[in-house]
């Protein structure tokens, strides 16, 4: 609860007591105010304007006194009484408060959003209620509105029934039903009465446009964060229409605006505006009140007061001494704790030394030895026979690289490699099977048709090192395969999946609705951690990809800037991802969650779904904040990005650097928006100097695709988009 809201609640409580001072015997019922307070309440000390209006209309008079009282208030403060005094408004605020508690408890993010798609009918409906009230009063010469009034039910009927015993008549039933319906509506739509029904609001609403008190919005540099709209109980687009006819002047938006761009000021026929001084241009403005708020807020300490004695300017005593970075509050899972995951040790010990393993292989790969290895001929689509893990462990063998005829030749020559330990056992079987083949077949055909049969039991045995690696894997890897039928799934992949508990596998048929999201030009397409797998389907390549993913998951952390979550009603992060449901949303500070601990696989959906830039990823273990981070430009071009062709990107980054983190976030967003077609790999630049020198990289961070197409230095959104356009045109 902000400062202004606290004052407002006090004001509402105080005025509720003041206008109900009857318990002290104080009555000033000749006074009326533009507030909704039933005069029939035994303690009510002022009278109700709507009741008086009806009464004077019934006697055939123009209600000059009531209209005059209301008008005198409205021309000064507009509808401020609705937000700060009115007891019925207070009642609705209390219901909103209860609703917010309920929401926090159940973690529901439902909010009925009445966006301004259709025309704003709220003023019209309020006028209909007002006119209906007056017409009914004239027609029936009776106060029909008072008999149905909901505040009357609360303030008069219930006390009367309690003190004088229960009695029933048709009006009582009707008004109780109306109150119940309204309370239900208050729970669905906040300030429903003020918005659509209040007859006083029909008169006070238009007065916002002409009153002395007005809401001002300095439109420059407004980031369109829409916090004001989310906070507003009446869903007004404050930046577009600050003096809306619906506004109750509750000042919640002023309270919550993070940049202080909103404020109330007096508009005495255009003479006085609020103190919206451009301090940098005119520091000694005639309107300045020397409040020193600007000095307080300036992050760099560039403002300060000083004495100017004939040019001898003294130094400001208010210069900034402490850096703001020291005030950053770090909320780690250690202190808050996410359910269902173990809380890790903080301070750098989270990350293992596994990175050297991957990077050694990276260097190894640079030399070209691994790349030149032939892919397995035997891995034809559709075969899913493989040995169980225990048997493979005993054998410790890997499948043959050469064709069968070559192997046989090698065996005859005695030059068969040592990998085939159990060759003797298999030899007889192979010979038996060879005899089954008709001799009329040519040699090549024979290889094609019968190779599979011979190799079947051994085909998907993984290398012992790989098996060990997979069995020790401790990060979640998510593999998805999109194929026309399940028999098309590569057998190596199935062997990989079975070798580890941490790999979750999912087969998606092309006819499935979900398959539309994925790239389907080369079936079967494999997605590892929601990134398209663009290499050959071989054991080594797949293991290398898994190592890359593991390196990413172990070194990247999720960072949440809770200051940006303030007043976020849609909470699209929680809708997008189940992991976010476990993460507590706090009011201030930063949360850092290593991806490994929260079981995230860095699909990047959250970063795209968050409209406020509160979610980002950081490479390294320290909190490096980036206040101006935004991926709006990338989001706007999502159509182009979604139609690119698959591409691999190598990101050369430094740990704990702002621009490296920014490059990482751009790439993550691009990867998600391209439906995973842009897959990436992280390389720590500090530990891989050789690789950098080899690739002619001039600056870090570097977004490397080939030596001709790389973005190095400070990677901007525009540069990334230019790259996307480039690869979009390559083949498209």
């Amino acid at each position, binding site marked *: 609860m902000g400062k202004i809201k606290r004052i407002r609640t006090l004001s509402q409580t105080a005025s509720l007591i003041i206008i109900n001072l009857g318990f002290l015997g104080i009555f000033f019922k000749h006074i009326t105010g533009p507030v909704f307070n039933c005069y029939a309440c035994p303690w009510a000390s002022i*009278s109700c304007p709507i009741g008086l209006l009806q009464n004077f209309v019934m006697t*055939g*008079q123009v*209600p*000059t006194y*009531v209209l005059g009282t209301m008008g005198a208030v409205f021309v000064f403060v507009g509808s401020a009484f609705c937000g700060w005094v009115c007891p019925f408004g207070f009642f609705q605020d209390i219901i909103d408060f209860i609703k917010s508690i309920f929401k926090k408890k159940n973690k529901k993010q439902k909010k009925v959003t009445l966006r301004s798609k259709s025309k704003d009918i709220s003023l019209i409906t309020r006028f209909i209620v007002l006119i209906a009230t007056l017409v009914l009063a004239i027609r029936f010469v009776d106060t029909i509105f008072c008999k*149905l009034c909901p505040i009357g039910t609360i303030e*008069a009927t219930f006390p009367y029934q309690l003190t004088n015993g229960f009695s029933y008549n048709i009006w009582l039933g009707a008004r109780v039903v109306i109150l119940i319906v309204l309370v239900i509506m208050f729970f669905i739509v906040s300030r429903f009465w003020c918005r659509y029904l209040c007859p006083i609001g029909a008169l006070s609403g238009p007065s916002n446009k002409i009153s002395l008190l007005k809401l001002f919005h300095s439109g420059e540099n407004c980031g369109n964060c829409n916090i004001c709209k989310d906070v507003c109980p009446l869903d007004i687009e404050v930046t577009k229409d600050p003096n809306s006819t619906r506004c109750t002047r509750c000042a919640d938006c002023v309270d919550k605006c993070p940049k202080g761009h909103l404020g109330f000021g007096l508009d005495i026929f255009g003479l006085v505006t609020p103190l919206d001084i451009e301090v940098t241009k005119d520091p000694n403005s005639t309107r300045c009140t020397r409040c020193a708020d600007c000095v307080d807020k300036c992050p760099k300490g560039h403002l300060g007061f000083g004495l100017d004695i004939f040019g001898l300017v003294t130094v400001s005593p208010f210069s900034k001494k402490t850096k703001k970075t020291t005030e950053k509050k770090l909320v780690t899972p250690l202190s808050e704790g996410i359910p269902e995951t173990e809380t890790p040790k903080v301070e750098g010990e989270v990350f293992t030394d596994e990175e050297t393993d991957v990077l050694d292989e990276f260097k190894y790969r640079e030399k070209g030895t691994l790349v030149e290895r032939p892919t397995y001929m035997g891995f034809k689509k559709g075969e899913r026979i493989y040995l169980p893990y225990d048997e493979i462990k005993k054998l410790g063998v890997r499948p043959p690289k050469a064709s069968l005829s070559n192997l046989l030749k090698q065996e005859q020559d005695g030059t068969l490699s040592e990998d085939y330990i159990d060759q003797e056992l298999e030899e007889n079987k192979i010979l038996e099977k060879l005899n089954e083949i008709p001799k009329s077949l040519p040699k090549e055909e024979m290889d094609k048709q019968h190779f599979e049969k011979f190799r079947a039991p051994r085909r998907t045995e993984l290398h012992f090192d790989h098996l060990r690696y997979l069995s020790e894997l401790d990060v979640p890897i998510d593999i998805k395969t999109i194929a026309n039928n399940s028999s098309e799934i590569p057998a190596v992949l199935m062997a990989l999946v079975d070798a580890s508990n941490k790999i979750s596998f999912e087969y998606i048929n092309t006819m499935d609705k979900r398959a539309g999201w994925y790239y389907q030009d080369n079936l079967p397409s494999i997605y590892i951690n929601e990134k398209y797998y663009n290499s050959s389907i071989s054991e080594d390549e797949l293991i290398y990809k898994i190592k890359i993913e593991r390196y990413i998951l172990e070194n990247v952390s999720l960072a949440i800037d809770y200051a940006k979550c303030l007043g976020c009603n849609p909470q699209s992060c929680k809708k997008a991802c189940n992991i976010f449901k476990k993460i507590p949303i706090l009011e201030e500070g930063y949360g850092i969650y290593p991806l490994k601990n929260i079981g995230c696989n860095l699909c990047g959906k959250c970063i795209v779904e968050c409209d406020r830039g509160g979610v980002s990823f950081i490479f390294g273990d320290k909190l490096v904040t980036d206040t101006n981070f935004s991926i709006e430009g990338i989001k706007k071009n999502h159509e182009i990005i979604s139609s690119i062709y698959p591409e691999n990107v190598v990101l050369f980054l430094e740990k704990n650097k702002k621009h490296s983190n920014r490059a990482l976030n751009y790439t993550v967003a691009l990867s998600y928006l391209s439906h995973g077609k842009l897959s990436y790999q992280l390389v720590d630049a500090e530990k891989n100097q050789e690789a950098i020198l080899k690739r002619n990289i001039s600056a870090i961070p570097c977004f490397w695709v080939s030596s001709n197409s790389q973005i190095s230095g400070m990677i901007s959104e525009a540069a990334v988009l230019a790259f996307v356009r480039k690869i979009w045109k390559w083949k498209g």
Partner: protein
Amino acid sequence: MKIISIIAFVLAFVLLISGIYGLSIGPLVIEGGQQAKSNQIGSYICLSCVGLTGNTVSHTLTDDTLNRLARIDYPVKIWVFTSTDCPTCPDAKAIILNFTVENPNITYEEIKLESQPQFFDTYAVSELPTVILFNKDGNVLMKNNFVYKIIGIDNFQEKLIEAVETVG
């Protein structure tokens, strides 16, 4: 927009002053202006106007009431507070009249807001209709150190006969 603001200012204060000083527009002119009238409307709550009590009540007394009424042998004085624009006050008055017809020990007096407003303050009456009772010595009937009041028209007969019995 500025012109509209000025017009609104002028109009609002003209209306307010005319309301306070009785420059009222309409067929019925009230002395002292609408402010005084609003004081009257606000101070004494017409219970049926705000839908707290029923509009239609039968005036005939039930057998039970008649039996209980016949046993009353001590003088009881009833005061009923009414107003000219109160819709249910005539009903209350008619029932009290029936009481007096059945038993001559019971007498009643009508206190009108327009003619005798001082009694309203004396007995702290703020709702219409309200009934209070006196015994033969002229002492008002009390209950828990408060004036015993019958407020509203709901179950009026039953409440009144009970009050009359407690006077004795």
